[in-house]
């Protein structure tokens, strides 16, 4: 190769190295845009509404921050709960189904949490976001995230609330100013709520797969009505 060829090669190599370095740095340092803000509101429901407090204990062995998105039965986002934080949101009194997923991980039904709730106006309810890992079966060897929304019972609510009162908490940014993420996709939100409905109805979504594929996906952990149903009187009265 003559000198002219080498002169061309040098900038190409430099650009390539620079692009690879940027890509590597971006992959390691990229964090999803903030969809929540610190909240200073008291843990008391406003008149005519119920207040729900969702807290997510930090999951060990997890790089970065896992954020749990909670959707209502209409697939509308009601809260984003960062790992180790608690989030608050208002809800209309009455029956609800809340669905939760983490960072758009929806390929495994066990990664979608479901909570049935009957809420009363003026009361404050507490929900714990339980997360863990399970070894997937079949040909897949990686671990799958397991997520569940657990109802805190009336007896335990005062103690949990007194602890949460001193912790910082967050609330969802208003819809107009909230940055869009992949989890905002309507198809994804609808699918998450659909999976949550199936689980809360006692079904295993993996059974919808044809037989050869069914054995390749891990079994969905059974949903427990006893753990994941908020009764009306579970909320702290005003």
């Amino acid at each position, binding site marked *: 190769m003559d000198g002219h060829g080498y002169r061309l090669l040098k900038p190409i190599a430099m650009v390539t190295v620079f692009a690879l370095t940027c890509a590597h740095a971006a992959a390691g340092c990229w964090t999803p845009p903030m969809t929540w803000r610190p909240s200073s509101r008291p843990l008391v429901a406003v008149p005519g509404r119920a207040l729900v407090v969702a807290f997510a204990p930090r999951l060990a062995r997890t790089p970065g921050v896992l954020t749990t998105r909670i959707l209502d039965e209409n697939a509308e986002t009601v809260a984003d709960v960062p790992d180790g934080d608690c989030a608050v949101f208002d809800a209309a009194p009455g029956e609800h189904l809340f669905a939760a997923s983490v960072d758009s991980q*929806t*390929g*495994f*039904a066990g*990664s*979608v949490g479901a909570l049935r709730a009957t809420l009363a106006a003026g009361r404050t309810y507490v929900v714990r976001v339980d997360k863990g890992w399970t070894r997937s079966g079949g040909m897949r060897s990686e671990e799958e995230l397991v997520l569940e929304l657990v109802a805190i019972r009336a007896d335990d609510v005062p103690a949990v609330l007194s602890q949460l009162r001193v912790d910082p908490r967050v609330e969802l940014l208003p819809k107009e100013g909230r940055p869009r993420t992949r989890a905002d996709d*309507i*198809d994804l939100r*609808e*699918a998450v*709520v*659909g*999976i949550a*409905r*199936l689980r809360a*109805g006692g*079904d295993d*979504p*993996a*059974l*919808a*797969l*044809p037989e050869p594929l069914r054995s390749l*996906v891990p079994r*969905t952990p059974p949903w427990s009505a006893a753990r994941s149903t908020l009764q009306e009187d579970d909320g702290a009265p005003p």
Partner: protein
Amino acid sequence: MQTQRRALGTAVLGLALTLAGPAWADDDPVVHVRFPAGTLLPYLDQQTAGGSWELACRAPCDQPLAAGRRYRIRGRTGHPSESFLLPRTAHVNVDASVGTPAATVFGSVFAVTGGVALVGGLALAVWPGDSDSDARGGRVVVGIGSMIVGAISVGVGLLVWHFGDTHAAVTPLAPLPQAKSSIQWTGTGIVF
């Protein structure tokens, strides 16, 4: 006279509908639609009398739907499944998998590109009229290579197209309970 005939017709129709009502309602299966995680939410459409489609419910549905009508599964976007009839049982499971438009496009592109490579490779390999044996040998090698790549591409395309398509499998779960009345409207007549 015409008024009397119309009144008689209305009375007969009313009697038939009265008899038909409960038996027809008993035939409606409760439909449960499920779908695997990681796929789109299935929408269940029913065909109207005019032949158009209207939304009946979304997964998991869990409501009675009229047996004897045609239904199909679709996503919010993308191709619908083949239409199907609901059996006359108490409960029906519909296992649905909603395809994505991207899978249809990619599958078609892979299959068509592979087909072109396959045919082109075959033509290249068997085309006569090259006196130079080295050139002919090279052409055969390129042709066979193109055929192999084309065949793989067609296979991948068909797989993506098949699994990316919308499917529905209907499974009847429970037989109908015994009819309460011995008089039933079968659709073509009254059975005692």
